[in-house]
């Protein structure tokens, strides 16, 4: 590959991977069985799209991915962008990207919840996952092995079929470093996100592995999804263990090399203080967002039930993002009809912060945002929004009343 006999794209990919491997003292490579590729057009920009088009123009044997490769959410929902007043040039970038990626044999799943909707990873499986939420879920809940593979790195892994072996691919990179004890079990999805955020704020590095004690029975997939997504977002953390819940933590003692450290205690009051740090929108709410991560079918049903027979306020938008597969299921099961009858918009294959959030806010006059996603409220203030974290029920009430 390095000599270029497999074409310039694979040579450039392996050279890039060698540089990264040397930076993190990798001794060799490990083959991967799946790639999850983050390549939304807002991140790609014109130069990234042109880069993909150059790859797509190579002969087929040089451009095709070597392992199954699925995509993270797109930057534009081509069925909804006009209604959202999004610029046609963004849609055009999206169309070009889709054509290029399909030419490389990439499966356009357009989802950050591939572990819930496409192919759940298996314990011990080496992966190149390119969304922090999907990576932390695969590592922690499934016991698979992946570092954060940002877009170009995941694409390189798709072209070479391997990644440098360091970090989460090594047993030594998966041992507990910090211990947290949760005194009161979170009671809903935004609570789980808030817990992930608090632990992420206190760990604060990719190379730490928090261990969370005090969870007395298994959380649901959606609860762990929100917890992990927030932990990865606030702390850049790719892996956690939860004794007697996650597969590599049979007991608390078994995940530490030495005696477990003294725990940092997390009380209900800490979660309440986290919510309070965002304040409230008492005058008006511009937009309510359910996304980041995309909603599972169960979450879609819950939101639909809360919206049934109600109407979204005329001065407030309610956006709900899910995967294309879940959208089709919602269409079939009548969930889409219930949601859209309320005036809410159901978006497929996108996620709010990946869809040109700054321009979207400016085009629609949105600043005051409410979400049940701790991850989203972390990201979105950099895009000019004033976010507030609230429960799913409070979010729906805010959308209906136009205020909190």
């Amino acid at each position, binding site marked *: 590959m390095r000599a270029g006999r497999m074409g310039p794209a694979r040579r450039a990919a392996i050279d*890039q991977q060698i*540089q*990264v491997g*040397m*930076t*993190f003292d990798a001794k060799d490579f490990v083959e991967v069985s799946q790639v999850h590729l*983050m*390549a*939304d057009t807002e*991140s*790609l*920009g*014109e*130069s*990234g799209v042109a*880069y993909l088009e150059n790859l797509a123009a190579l002969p087929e044997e040089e451009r095709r991915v070597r392992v199954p490769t699925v995509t993270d959410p797109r930057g534009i929902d081509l069925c909804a962008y006009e209604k959202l007043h999004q610029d046609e040039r963004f849609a055009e970038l999206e169309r070009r990207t889709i054509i290029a990626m399909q030419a490389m044999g990439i499966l356009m799943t357009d989802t950050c919840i591939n572990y819930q909707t496409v192919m759940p990873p298996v314990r011990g499986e080496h992966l190149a996952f*390119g*969304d*922090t939420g999907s990576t932390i879920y695969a590592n922690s809940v499934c016991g698979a092995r992946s*570092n*954060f*593979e*940002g*877009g*170009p*790195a995941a694409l390189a892994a798709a072209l070479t079929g391997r990644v440098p072996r360091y*970090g989460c691919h090594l047993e030594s990179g998966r041992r507990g470093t910090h211990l947290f004890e949760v005194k009161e079990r979170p009671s809903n999805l935004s609570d789980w996100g808030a817990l992930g955020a608090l632990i992420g704020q206190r760990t*604060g*590095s*990719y*190379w730490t592995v928090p261990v969370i004690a005090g969870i007395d029975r298994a959380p649901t997939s959606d609860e762990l999804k929100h917890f992990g997504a927030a932990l*990865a*977002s*606030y*702390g*850049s953390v790719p892996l956690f263990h939860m004794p007697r819940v996650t597969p590599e933590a049979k007991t608390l003692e078994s995940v530490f090399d030495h005696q477990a450290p003294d725990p940092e205690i997390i009380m209900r009051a800490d979660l309440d203080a986290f919510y309070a740090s965002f304040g409230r929108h008492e005058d008006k709410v511009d937009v309510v967002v359910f996304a980041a991560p995309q909603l599972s079918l169960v979450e879609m049903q819950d939101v639909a039930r809360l919206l049934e027979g109600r109407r979204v306020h005329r001065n407030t938008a309610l956006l709900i993002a899910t995967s294309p597969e879940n959208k089709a299921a919602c269409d079939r099961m009548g969930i889409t009809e219930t949601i859209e009858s309320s005036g809410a918009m159901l978006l497929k294959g996108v996620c709010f*912060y*990946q869809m040109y959030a*700054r321009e979207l806010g400016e085009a629609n006059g949105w600043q005051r945002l409410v979400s049940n996603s701790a991850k989203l409220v*972390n*990201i979105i*203030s*950099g*895009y*000019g929004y004033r976010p507030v974290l609230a429960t799913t029920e409070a979010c729906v009430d805010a959308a209906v009343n136009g205020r909190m």
Partner: protein
Amino acid sequence: MAERHIKGHVGVGQQASGIALVARDNFSARYDLDRLKGVFSRPAHALHGQSYVNTVLVLHTAKGGVATSWMLREMKNRAMAPAALLLNLGNPVMAQGAAFAELAFMDRFEVDITEAIKTGDRVTVDPQAGLVIID
């Protein structure tokens, strides 16, 4: 004043120089930047409102998601990138993005890099040698 040399881990990219912009805060291109204007846009960031273009950007750790890895190249192609990025502790996304963008990146220094370098210092970064030189 004599040059000062600071050793770090071997990094990514080629030698680069610039004027330092330093803060004891963390870094994500997606979370913190207005990449069109070339300034820090996150209100809570220590460098809020300041331009990072062509600086040697010195911060504490990498944070947040994976988007930075595409964004660094896109920023560089529009001449709106820092000249180099130095972190006390990086993560894979920063190294991957720097490798893709051909941007100088280093981390894991023998000292706290946000203490050793002051905003306004003239700095040369040599990632292959694992060396930072302050004029």
